[in-house]
C-alpha cells in the first residue's frame, strides 16, 4: 500500500530503527517526506502516519507545530532572513526588504515560478554575524542589503542544485559569529535541512 519507492521505504525504516519507539521517528520522516516532494503534502503525512501507527490527524498536529515543515508551496530556494533582536539592531529588516525587492517575492510568499520563497525568521543563532540569512537552512552571516541582492541574483541565475553555506559565505558574507574552519562539501537540496541520516543532504563533487 506504500506510496513511497522501495529505497525510500528502506531509508524510512532505517530512520525508525534509530529510536527505541517508533513515534520518535515522526519528525525525521516528515523531513524525508518534504524532501521527496519539495513540501509536506497530505499524502506525505498519510504515509508517515502509516509508518509510525498514528492517524493522519495526529501527524498533522505534530507537523503543524513546527515552522520548518512547509505544508504550502515553497520554492526550490527558501531564503530566510533573521529579524530577531540582534539582527534587527544591525539592519536585518533592510536586508529583508532588499531581498524581497530583488526576488519580487514578499515576506512569506513563493514566486509563481516556484523557484524562490522569502520569509523572515526568528533568531537562527547567528547573532554574532548579524544580519544573518539562510538559504535552505545553509547559513550566510554578515549580509548587507547589497550582498543580499547579489545572493538572490546568484541563486536565480546560477540555479545551484546543491546549496553550500561556505560558498555563499565566501561570495556574499561578512562578519561571522566565529571562525568556521574548513570548507564543507555537504549541502542542501531543496527547502529541508541537509542531514545525512535523514537522506536530505548531498555532497557536491
Amino acid at each position, binding site marked *: 500500500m506504500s506510496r513511497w519507492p522501495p529505497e525510500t521505504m528502506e531509508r524510512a525504516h532505517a530512520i525508525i530503527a534509530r529510536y527505541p519507539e517508533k513515534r520518535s521517528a515522526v519528525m525525521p520522516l516528515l523531513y524525508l517526506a518534504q524532501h521527496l516532494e519539495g513540501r509536506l503534502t*497530505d499524502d506525505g*503525512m498519510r504515509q508517515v502516519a502509516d509508518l509510525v501507527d*498514528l*492517524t*493522519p*490527524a*495526529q501527524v*498533522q*498536529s505534530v507537523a*503543524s*507545530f513546527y515552522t520548518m515543515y512547509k505544508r504550502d508551496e515553497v520554492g526550490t530556494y527558501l531564503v530566510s532572513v533573521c529579524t530577531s533582536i540582534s539582527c534587527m539592531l544591525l539592519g536585518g529588516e533592510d536586508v529583508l526588504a532588499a531581498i524581497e525587492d530583488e526576488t519580487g517575492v514578499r515576506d512569506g510568499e513563493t514566486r509563481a515560478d516556484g523557484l524562490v520563497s522569502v520569509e523572515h525568521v526568528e533568531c537562527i543563532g547567528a547573532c554574532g554575524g548579524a544580519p544573518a540569512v539562510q538559504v535552505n537552512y545553509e547559513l550566510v552571516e554578515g549580509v548587507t542589503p547589497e550582498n543580499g541582492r547579489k545572493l538572490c541574483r546568484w541563486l536565480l541565475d546560477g540555479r545551484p542544485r546543491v546549496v553550500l553555506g561556505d560558498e555563499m559565505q565566501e561570495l556574499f558574507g561578512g562578519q561571522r559569529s566565529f571562525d568556521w574552519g574548513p570548507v564543507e562539501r555537504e549541502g542542501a537540496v531543496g527547502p529541508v535541512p541537509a542531514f545525512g541520516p535523514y537522506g536530505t543532504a548531498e555532497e557536491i563533487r
Partner: protein
Amino acid sequence: MSERVTITIDGREHEVPAGELLIKAAQDTGTYVPRFCWHPRMKPVGMCRMCLVEVEGPRGRMLTTSCTMPVNDGMVVHTESDVVKKAQEGVLEFLLINHPLDCPVCDRGGECPLQDQTMSYGPGESRFVEEKRHFEKPIPISDLVMLDRERCILCARCTRFCEEISGDPLIEFKDRGNGTQVLTFPGEPFSSYFSGNTVQICPVGALTATAYRFRARPWDLEAVESTCPHCSVGCRISVQASQNQVLRFLGVDSEPTNQGWLCDKGRFGFEYLNSSERLQMPLVRGADGGLHEATWAEALDAAAGRLAVVIDQKGADAVAGLGGARSTNEAAYAFGKLLRSRIGTPHLDAQLDDGLDPQFLAGVEPRATIDDLERASTVLVWGPDLKEELPVLYLRVRRAAAELGATLIVVNPRATGLDDVATHVVRYRAGDGSGALRRLSAGDGELAAARAALAEGPVVAIVGRTGLAEPSALAESVAAFVRELPDARLMPAVRRSNVYGALDMGLSPSLLPGRASAFDDAARASLAEQWGSVAGGSGRGAGGIIEGLAAGLIDGLLLLGADPMQDAPDTARAAAAMQRASVVIAIDLFLTASAEQADVVFPALGFAEVEGTVTNIEGRVQKVNRLLPGPGQAREAVEILEDLARRLGGSIGATSAEAVAKEIAAVAPAYRGVTWDLLDWGDGRDGIVVPGPEGSQPLGFVPVARDIPAASADLTLHLARTLYDHGTAVRRGPSLAKLSPEPAVHLHPDDARRYGVGTDSPVRISGSGGEAELTVRLDDSLARGTVYLPFNLGVSIGTGLEVRLEAMS
C-alpha cells in the same frame, strides 16, 4: 477505604483521600474552584490555567493549578486570596479577548461554563481593542458534529477524549500558539462512534450536534433521568424534551456503568420517538384485507375474538408470543403472564434465535459486573465486536487495558475495535471455534503467553457469539473453560436492550420470572399459587415458533415490539412462516414489516413515555422514566395486555406498571425487594444488581464444553452486526440513518485471489437462507477461508456457516 490526609482550604480543615487532586478534594469538601480543561474522567493537563490557587510552601505561597496538584498531608490552600482572584480574572479576560461573545445565537447559551464564570469571576468592560481571531464559522467535521473554532478556548477536552477514552484521535490541535485550532485531517471526517461525548464535554459552544443545533434553549427544556434504550449496557442518561419532542440525550455519570459517556447511537438514536410514522390509533384488518383505524374497544374485541377462535379450535398451545426484549420488565412480565397463565401456552421467546441459551444467560455463574473490569488483571473478550454492539462496554474494556494495565485477550474471526489495546489477538476461522478454544486452553505455540495470563486472576471474561452464524453452544464451551480458571467471572453478552430483563421475567420456554427454571416443578407450583395456572411442558423458542408457524402447528402469534421479518437472522424464513399464521396481533410503535402482516395492531407508548425498570448485561436493574405523553391514542403495553387478558377470561393484575412492579418484587425470586422506591430514592440510584440483598438465584446453570466439528466448506460465514444497522432506532432517525454502511462481501486478499476477485468486483454469495449479489471489500484482518457479511443491512442469506461464492462478470 484508601488512606486519608488533612488539608486546610481557606482556613477550614478537611479530611480527604491521600493523593487526590486538589480541585476534586476541594469540590468534595464544598469549595468549587473554577475550571475549563479539567474533566474528572480524564487525565489533568493544566492548560486553561483557570483553576489557579495558592498553596503554602517552603518559599511562601505558590500559585499552582489545583487540577494538577495532588493533596498531601498538612497542605494549606488559599482559593479566595486577592492573588488568586486576580489571576483567575486575568485568565478569564485572556479567554474572552478572542471569544466572539455570540451567546444569544449559541447552543450553549444558558448552560455555558465560560458564560457562567464570566458572570461570577469575570472582569467587566473589555480593554481589548484589537481585531479578534477569525476562523470560518461553524464547519461540519462529521455528519453529526459542527465545529466553531472562534468559540473554542483550546481546553483540549475533545482531543483528549478521542485519544485517551475512545481511542480514535481524528480531531487534534493544529498549528501552535495564538494560531492553535482544533481540526480534522483533510478528507478524514470525525467519524467516531463516540463523537457526541465531545459535544457534551465542550465547555463552550465550539462543538455542537447537528441534531440539536438551534432546537431549544436550556431553560425551555424539561428533563428526566433514565436508562438508554439502545443496548444492554444500560447507560444512565438525562432525557431532555421541549414541546412534547425529545430533543437530546445527555450522558449521566454513573460510576458502575457509563461513567458519563454514551455512544452516538444512544445519544442521537432518540429521533425515532418523534417520528411522524409513530402509530397513533389501533388498526384492524378489514374484510377488504386492508388495515383500518379502529377504536380501542373494537381493536381489543377483534384481537381477543380472533385469538379465542384459534384457542378453541387448535388449543392454547397453537398460540405463541415473541418479543419483550425492548420493553420494560413490567411489560415483559405481563406479556409472559398473559401467555403462560391466561392463554396457557409455553411457546414464548424474547430473543429471535439470534442470542444465547436463555438458561445460560439467566443462570451462569460466577457473574461479572462491568465494574469488575476496574480490578481485573486479565480480560478475555470472546464474543461480539464490543465497539459495534456494546459500545460503552467497549470503552470500559479499553480503559481496563489502556489505562489500568489489564492484559486483554481478544478472540474473533476478524479485527475488532479493541485489537489495538489488546495484548493478545487470536484469530480463528468462522466455524472453527472449538479448535481455537482447544488451542487456547492448551496454550499452543504463540498462545502460551495468553494462556498464562488467563491463570492470573482476577479474570473477567465477556463471552458471546462473535457472529450469528456461530453456534451458541460455542459460547457455553468457552464459559465452561473460563469457569475452570482461578478467580474468573463471566459476562455472557447479548445486545438487545432489555433482553436480560425480558428473560428474567420468564419470556422463554425454559424460564419463569425471577430466574427460575420452567422445568423446576417446585418453582412452577409456587408461581401457580400466584398466577392460578402456569403452562408447563417443553415450549418452543423463537426458532421453534417460526418452524411451528411454517408447519401449521402454530396459528396465533402475539408480537410485543418484535419484528421477526426484519430482525430475525433468517428474514426470508420468518416472512414465509408468518404468511401461514391465521392470527397475528402486534403491539408496537411503528407499522413494522411484521406488523403489516398483523390482523390487529396496537399503538404502544415507547421510551420516555412509560415508567418502569430494565435490566442490563450485568443484571443491574435500573429505572426508565416518563417525560412525554406519547402520540395519539397510544397506550402502555402493560395496560393493553391487561385489557386483552380480561377479554380472554380475566385480569392478570396488570392494572398499572407500578402494580406489576410490586408483583415482580414479590414473586420473582431474583427480584425480591427490588422496588421502584428503592431505585428512585434508596441505595438503588445506580441500579441494583440482581439477585439483590433480599433476592435469590434459584437457577444454577452449568455450561458444558461441547466439541463442535469444524465446518468443512471452502468458505465459512462470519455474520456480524455493525452499530448503525437497519434496526428501528437507526432507520427511523434522520441523523443516524445516513450513517449505516453499504453491505458488502468482505474477503481476505488471499481468498479473493483464489476466486479471482478484487475490491469492488461483483460477486454472488449464497448461504443456507438465500443469496445476494454484492461487491467485494478486501480485509486482511479476516481469518483465511472466512467471509464477513454485515448483518441487518438489508441483505439476508441465512445463518448457515457454509457459503458459496462466485464471481460475476
